[in-house]
């Protein structure tokens, strides 16, 4: 690191700063693009979905390989994707086992970081946000962080409930703000907002410079003209910003949204809300407006009810008699039914991605689509093993149709899986959370 810095500075001094700059900067920009194998391949995307309170204690499992894989009842909605499914068993976060149940988990779901108690809020930067620090510069939106249940700001058993509602963390003290409104998520992807702001500032400072120019000496004017020329050139660059894509080898298959902007507000129906959020996420990935997306379907310790899901235990009714959190304790038929409802959303997302062709692969093939929860079974609140499944083949770098079982093995940190996934996207932190090495099998 030091050597690198040194080399860069020496280099700048040697060549002469003014001459060196534009060239150097362009190096950096294209450097990111070339990191991803061949420039004509579609980039790899990461998409993480989350549901709280775990799953049915007996029905989250998978056996066998490829198309012959057998699935527990929770996973039956994914039957069509068995050959693209990576079922990972036995991984966990050491830090999540400290503290209490619920409120002290989830907040480190994607970081494995220690979590502060006593009403304070401190976790760790999540791996999706770490990736977005690298890939965010290449896309309009660094990452899309969505949710279908509002977060809870109060304190539960000595831990802030913000932890139960946030899987993405931009910094250890910043749970990435969640977008709950489909219309606003849509706007974030497709409404042009940053450039006009920059332009308004540039217009204003250009006027400042012209005012200043009147009062200063002729020799100073020559100097100030450097500034005026620079402002004008940056303004031109902003105006031409949309044309930059032409330089890249790969073009997204869609350049404008192919759906209309959703209505304002949050849909009354939970299923509709989830579908809309998924559609927007797919759109964001397809148009390359972002490459990183997370969707929190509900909170851990969730208060959602499911009147839309028919009850097995009370035929003729929806499952609205119990909130998600307490339903998870029952481990009954209705709980299983709600689990399947969540997996249906996940399957819907996979299906949408799989219908979009990007060259020889589908968008799903170019994506790592992960679903996870903060505990294995709601009835037991156990997080010694966490439920994790992955769909999609990361542009051919990830092989599906497999069950990987780490239970009983040493070094079964979930963060090792995150290191593996980051590796697929060519980001290689020396350590992440409580892990220092990747999972070889992934």
């Amino acid at each position, binding site marked *: 690191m030091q050597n690198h810095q040194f080399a860069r500075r020496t280099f700048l001094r040697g060549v002469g700063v003014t001459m060196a700059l534009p060239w150097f900067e362009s190096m950096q920009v294209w450097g990111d693009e070339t990191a991803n194998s061949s420039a004509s391949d579609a980039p790899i995307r990461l998409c993480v979905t989350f549901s709280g309170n775990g799953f049915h204690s007996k029905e989250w499992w998978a056996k066998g390989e490829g198309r012959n894989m057998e699935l527990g009842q929770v996973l039956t909605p994914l039957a069509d994707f068995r050959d693209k499914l990576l079922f990972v068993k036995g991984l966990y976060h050491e830090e999540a086992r400290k503290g209490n149940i619920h409120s002290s988990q989830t907040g480190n779901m994607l970081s494995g970081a220690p979590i502060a108690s006593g009403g304070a809020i401190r976790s760790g930067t999540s791996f999706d946000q770490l990736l977005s620090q690298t890939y965010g510069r290449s896309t309009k939106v660094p990452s899309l962080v969505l949710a279908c249940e509002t977060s809870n700001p109060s304190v539960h058993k000595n831990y802030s409930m913000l932890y139960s509602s946030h899987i993405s963390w931009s910094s250890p003290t910043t749970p990435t703000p969640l977008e709950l409104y489909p219309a606003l998520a849509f706007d974030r992807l497709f409404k042009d907002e940053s450039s006009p702001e920059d332009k308004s500032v540039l217009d*204003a400072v250009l006027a400042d410079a012209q005012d200043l120019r009147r009062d200063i000496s002729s020799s100073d004017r020559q100097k100030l003209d450097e500034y005026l020329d620079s402002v004008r050139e940056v303004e031109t660059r902003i105006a031409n910003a949309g044309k930059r894509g032409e330089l890249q080898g790969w073009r997204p298959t869609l350049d404008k949204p192919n759906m209309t902007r959703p209505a304002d507000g949050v849909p009354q129906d939970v299923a509709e809300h989830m579908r809309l959020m998924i559609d927007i996420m797919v759109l964001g990935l397809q148009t390359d407006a972002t490459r990183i997306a997370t969707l929190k379907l509900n909170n851990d310790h969730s208060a959602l009810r499911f009147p839309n899901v028919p009850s097995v235990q009370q035929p003729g009714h929806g499952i609205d008699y119990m909130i998600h959190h307490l339903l998870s304790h029952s481990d009954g038929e209705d709980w299983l039914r709600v689990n399947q409802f969540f997996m249906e959303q996940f399957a819907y997302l996979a299906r949408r991605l799989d219908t979009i062709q990007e060259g020889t692969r589908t968008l799903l093939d170019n994506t790592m689509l992960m679903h996870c929860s903060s505990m294995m079974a709601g009835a037991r609140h156990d997080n010694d093993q966490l439920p994790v499944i992955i769909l999609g083949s990361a542009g051919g770098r990830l092989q599906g149709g497999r069950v990987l079982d780490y239970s009983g093995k040493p070094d079964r940190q979930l963060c090792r899986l995150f290191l593996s996934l980051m590796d697929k996207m060519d980001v290689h932190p020396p350590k992440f959370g409580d892990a220092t090495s990747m999972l070889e099998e992934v």
Partner: protein
Amino acid sequence: MQTLRRPKLCDQVARPIRWLLSIGIQFVWLACGVTYAADEFDSQILPLLRDYCNTCHSKEKVEGELDLQRFSSTGIVKQHTEVWEQVLHQLELGEMPPKDAKQLSNHQKQQLMNWVRKTLDEVAIANAGDPGPVILRRLSNREYTYTVRDLTDVDSLEPARDFPVDGAAGEGFTNVGAALVMSPALLTKYLDAAKEVSRHMVLLDDGIRFSKSDSAQDWTDETLAAIRAFYARYTTTGDAFKSIQQGISLDVGTETGRLPLNRYLDALQGRGDTANLSPKYLKLLLDALETSRPSPVLAPLCQKYRAKELVAADIEAWQNVLWRFTTVGHIGKVNGPTAWQEPVTPIVAKQELQWKLEGNRDHTLYLVATNAGDGDEGDQVVWERPRLVAKGRPDLPIQSIPGVVEYLESQRTQLIADSEDCLAALAVGKEDAPRESLAIWREYLGYGVSKLEPLLDRKIESASGYNFIQGWTGDNALSVLANSSDTSVRTPGTMPGHSIATHPAPDRASVIAWKSSAASVLRIDGSVVHAHPECGNGIEWALEVRGATATERLASGFSNGSKLIHIGPFENVRVEPEQVVALVIGPRDGNHSCDLTTVNLTISDGANTWDMAKDVSPNILTGNPHGPWHFLSQPTSQGIVNELPEPIATWRKGPSAELAAKVREHLTIDFPLTHPLLAVALRSFKPSIENVDLTARAPSVREVTIPAALAEGATLVVTGRLAATDSGSVQMQIQADKPTKTDSILAGQASTAQQKAQWSDNRLVTQHSSPIIANENSQERKRFETAFDEFRSLYPLALCYERIVPVDEVVTLTLYYREDDHLQRLMLEEPEVRELNRLWNQLRFVSDAPLKQVDAFEQLWQFATQDADPSAFEPLRDPLKAQAAAFRKVLTGAVPLQKRAIIEFAAKAWRRPLNAKEIADLQSFSPRLMLVRVLTSPAFLYRGEKAPQVTGAVNDWELASRLSYFLWSSAPDEPLRALAAEGNLRDPDVLAAQARRMLKDARVRRLATEFGCQYLHVRDVAELNEKSERHFPTFIDVRDDMQEEVTRFYVDMFQNNRSVLALIDADYTFINKPLADHYGLPFEGAGWQRIEGLRDRGRGGVLGFAATLAKHSGASRTSAILRGTWMSEVILGEKLPAPPPGVPTLPEEAPEGLSERQLIERHSSDERCASCHKRIDPFGFALEGFDAIGRIREADTKTVLMDGTAISGMSELRGYLLNQRRDDFLKQFSRKLLGYALGRSVQLSDQPLIEKMVQAKDHNIGDLIEWIVRSQQFREIRGNDRIINQPNVSLR
């Protein structure tokens, strides 16, 4: 080296010169009143030039791009002084004429040089004070960073970290306009940097502040920390204290926030000082303690105070019983607490007193009635029914005690005598034994009836909305439920189909009993599973066979998560008719939340089988009892009793005559009066004395003696009250020690516990050990209430809720809780209250709490709908919504205030007042973008100065910037701005005074690095990467410290106005431990320290700094050439010619057998190089005593300098510099300082000022800086009249 004549005339003539200049005459050399012989040039100089110079430097040949032929008069010479400076320099160096050309005689050479010097001096004097050409300066990266930090007061900001490195120009500093370029790429970086800074701006309800973080959570935490720091000024600090809820230990509050009584009492009683104490509270206390009060509580305190014996413990005793702490996470709910710190009043009309007797011994107790410290009037007391209470025997009035002992002794004798007969009779179920003894044995052994009460008698027709869940219930969630359906449901615990579940109360266990109708031998099989293991701490259970008194415990234990616990099966369990099999489910540690437990019992006598779930679940409401099944409760305090001792237990399992004999034998040996058999016997004892009340007049003490036989497991119970119903006030106590004082008041202890049914409804009950007994509405009662109020108003336990973020409920509702009314009332003055309110408003604003609270409420309400009573929170709904609505208005209303603050910020950033148009333009942006715009404007990025028509003073604002960027590399601070606004800064005295002030400031550190370190070429030692790690592995760890030493040396010099000669001869420096180790100097303690006596240790000043020595060395070896060049050029200001082409390079490492010095000597002996190396190498040789990273080493340091002076080592070099070269050093330093101050190259016209600086008395740095800031060139700007394309004229 020659020096200039002091230009005495110059000051007086400066103005006429400028006037002349202003009318278009550029260079007037006659104006100083010096006349020249017009013919000197023609007659003396021109011939020399023609003969010795113009042959090469002619119009045609132009050797070295120099044409000297064109200089045909003195006037032309004076217009091109830069050429003639160069000519003079070449002559001085002896470079010209070249060795192979015709040589000037010594006399001719002197003549030529003297003339050039004289002519240049004339020009210098004539133009002295010229502000010179200063090009518009962009802020350097450093200046930008420092300015942003000063404006935001956030020292960690690094907005310029990605900027390209600034170039240096002028005198070699990075603050010269020409080298500070702008490009589109850099402009984009400025825009990004401004955005980054704007992300650190915290928008407040009344303006803005800046944070080191860009995270909203951190901003909230900062404000929280500010409030806590405020609280900490007046309160104690300490640990958290805890409350256990649903098995979770939660912080109720902290010891921080308490009233620091001892410090106040010490101060008032002359034991401590009043530093950091509130004057307001001191006065309040003083008034209270010096005034005599009738209060029975306060009067004793005043008394102790007068004796100077009052300590905090005296007051704390009362604080602890008059206050209690509650939980605040749900304040506002139905039946919830009203505040964190609540008053409690220990006054009762009647007091239950209990004294638990422990140990098998005689006890003496005292019934004490005191007058409560307020006189004896009306203090007639009644001790109601004093009695001994023990489990399983009738209460014994204390008056009957002697008779009881007698009775027990006779019973014992009788029972032993009758034992074999009784057991024989019981074994066969006959009555042929002494009747009284047989009854006792029967009851003791459980051959009797177990009382099955109280039965649960309230029906539950449907639980949790399921009509198939029904059962029986008592108070506090005590219940037995049956699921008649096939479906497993959550209620919220899990109830499988056709199951029975039960839930205990906090103080009562649930008992499910099966009653036997006949004597039988049973097989018992049971199961217990905690149905709701996600919360709570689980349950305890026991399976027992019960007779009337005897209970045999078959098994017991605790629940284990959701694991099913099998109990038994127990075979061959013998029961008598009416005996019961009981399954007891109790709350663990009194915590009954989430304690629903699924249970079952299957009992078989060989012929019949009773399965509770099967029998009861279809129709539990048929009745209680339900066939043989009984659902009842018992106190949790009732543990296992009457474990039968051997050999009775053995007899009980299989009676025989032999075993009965053994029982008798056993009883003769071991049959204490406390034996349970006698307890059974005691049940039929009829005390001859009825319970009689005792009366007494307080103060009084009555002694009670209790023999050991009755003491074990017994409690002395009595109710105390006043005899009269309208007057009197006493305190009544049972005590083990005879009291010595019965006419004073006692604080006693208080204990507070939660009486909790479900989590939405917790109530606190506080019990006092020594309450005042006074009747309702009595005068005495009112007097005490007043006394307690008075006490509480003066002595709260806590001044404020320092924790602020409550975590004291399982799920909190309140996000930030404020309770500091006591602090405000007792300690704070008006401005402090305002400050505190401001911080609290800020906290609410920054955290968005009123809006978040609405979400928190909604979710809490949802949780409560599932396993508690949501209506408890209903009263909070509307107020929270109203607060949120009000807060939205605050949000809108804050924007104009934020904008106003940013406009104030802009005026500081732009370093001048804003005009109306600028303000209006800024206002059109949103606050955050407004800041971006301010920081991207040329008004911020450039140090623009208005160009006057005529050369003259810059305006006050521009002058303020010149001064602050010179000394602090940053924008003017508030005092400078104030002076500029008043128009006073243009007064040179004021300006000089400001410079002196600023030199004392810590920000002068920037002058140390930007000027001081750059001047010595050690600005980048902290990042020096070139050193060979193989040779110098330690360097990398100490390089920061090396640079820090130089910086600290300068800071000390600036702040203490030291002589600049200290750079050469200081006997001190500043080091830390790593640097001391590096230098091999002794060091004690930690941190940075000034150390003296450096010269004796071979160091002192720049010659001995590791930074300078390491910087001017190679990667793996020293370099006398580098050090010598540095000495010659940087320290002495000599101008060396460029090395000739084709110079061989030196190897990085000295070859085997050659010292570094020898290596260089060999190189320098090269014919082409020798002339220069003779000048520079000797300086380096003198410093060979230091290795390439500045450590002292053995080396040959003898050398002869260019001027023939022989020296050896660093100290002689220092002597040479101080004596022979002092003026050269001073001139060079002054020139660099002036160049840095002005942001341009020093020119010929600066020579008079530099001369003044060189001659300054004592050479103090402050004086030098004052010369500069007072100078014309510093305070003035060239007018448009002077802006011509004049080349920079450099000084020799």
